[in-house]
């Protein structure tokens, strides 16, 4: 499968919109807001928009060709802008995350409308979030790396 490299524009985009649950065009906006380079990998049932930010965080947004972004993952030395990546789901995450029973370094959310895990250990930050009802049929959760 081919990989398209799209040149990155370094000016942050003021009007950057949310990714998760929004149209797949938002991935292009996010890559500008994150000041990174974007590579698009077409898969059988979806595209992966991978953004590597200048500060070393890799963000992947999973979107169908015509539909919304159904998943987003990240890994790197710090937490990316989750308000940008989670969009309308950010407030849902904040509400669900208000517990410290698992400690400060791992967080797991598993609800019918949002599944999310976050790890923040020493100098590692990684996480994944997806919307179960938007997962294309035949796509397994384990594919979302």
């Amino acid at each position: 499968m081919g990989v398209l490299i799209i040149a990155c524009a370094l000016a942050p985009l003021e009007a950057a919109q949310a990714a998760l649950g929004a149209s797949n065009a938002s991935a292009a906006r996010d890559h500008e807001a994150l000041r990174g380079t974007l590579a698009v990998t077409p898969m059988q049932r979806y595209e992966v928009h991978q953004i590597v930010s200048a500060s070393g965080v890799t963000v992947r947004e999973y979107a169908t060709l015509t539909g919304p972004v159904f998943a987003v993952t990240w890994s790197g030395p710090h937490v990316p802008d989750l308000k940008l990546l989670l969009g309308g789901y950010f407030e849902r995450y904040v509400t669900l995350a208000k517990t410290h029973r698992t400690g400060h370094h791992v967080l797991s959310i598993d609800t019918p409308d949002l599944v999310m895990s976050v790890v923040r250990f020493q100098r590692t930050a990684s996480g994944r979030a997806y919307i179960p009802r938007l997962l294309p049929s035949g796509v397994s959760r384990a594919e979302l790396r």
Partner: protein
Amino acid sequence: MRMHDARMGLLLGIVGLVTGCGGGNSNGGVFNFGGGNNGGTGTGNGNGANTLAVTVDGGPVAAGGTVNTLFTTVTICAPGSTSECQTIDHVQVDTGSTGFRVIASVLGNGLTAGELPQAGDGNSNALDECVQFADGYSWGTVRTADLIIGGETAAAVPIHVIGDAAAPAVPASCVTGPEENSVQSFGANAILGIGNFLSDCGMACETGAMAGTYYGCDSSANCSPVAVPVNQQLQNPVSLFAADNNGVIISLPNVTVPSSTVSGTLTFGIGTQPDNTLGNAQIYTVDPDYGTMTTLYGGSQFGTSFLDAGSSGYFFSDAAIPTCADQPAFYCPPSTLMLNATIQGNNGATAGIAFAADNADTDFATNAAALPNLAGPTASDAADVFDWGLPFFYGRNVYVAFEAGSAAGVAGPWVGF
């Protein structure tokens, strides 16, 4: 918001499979508690100058009940002062972060935040910090303090005063989750981060300003991300001790059933005193950038694996174990599961680990603070993260050797048990 180039590598390294030395979990070091996973019959009593008592209990009252959270007591003083001091209880001991952070509302009983000089950035602005944990963010000032920890002192340490009224309103780029600026939301009065690293952010924050970390705030309360030299970032307090400064040992007794309190010892230094020798513990080196190693479990390789006193359970993905209906952050198997995994250091050293996963609903119903078989998922099924939280520490001496030095003749960063 701006994120400048910090040029950190990506978290993609997969450690090759190497059959390493030893394994098993026999330890036999001088701090062994009877009946634990390490065997041995010695006891740590927390009375030496390089030792400090640690406790697992329900936490500060305002936190509303914590589980598997390790606490100790630390005295904070204004730099050079012996009178402007306050002793803080329920300071969480965390090997998953670096630096001392105190909730501002705890101060005011012998020491006020204002008696600690606030740090500045390179532009004559006040230095403030945002820390982003998995479960929320904390925002406050960076101030300088002397920390008295057991019989040892770290002088003129940059610390984080969370929720300090002197800090301007939180910058939008800091807010990546729930706010944790109070004892209630943070779950402790303070946190003592004594992980493998000497500073909390490292070169990434020295090379360039990074949103979500350090901010310079001007007199008009305008805050912007700012680069901060490594030695002016939050420091691992133990590394600043005059002696016994190359690592720590956490020694907890074996815990077999839910318990209201567990008492153990935090020992400073590795191989620097008769009471902190390596004994029979094995060394597992960790990634020098991220502090992670590898766990093999259920036929999968978890490349982001770590020992973390700051996590309340074993956290890993196993789709075969049901999560609890009422709190899916934990596993609820019908009965306790006996499980096995292999921990593998970056040096190839391996250890087979037997552990158990309880029904968490049953555990929580006991209202006990120490739950030795508490486990939960990482929600996405991606076989990458394996977090050996505080239950792993019960019945073991766990060694944490710092970066940029060596302990027991082996260069850090590493962990041992």
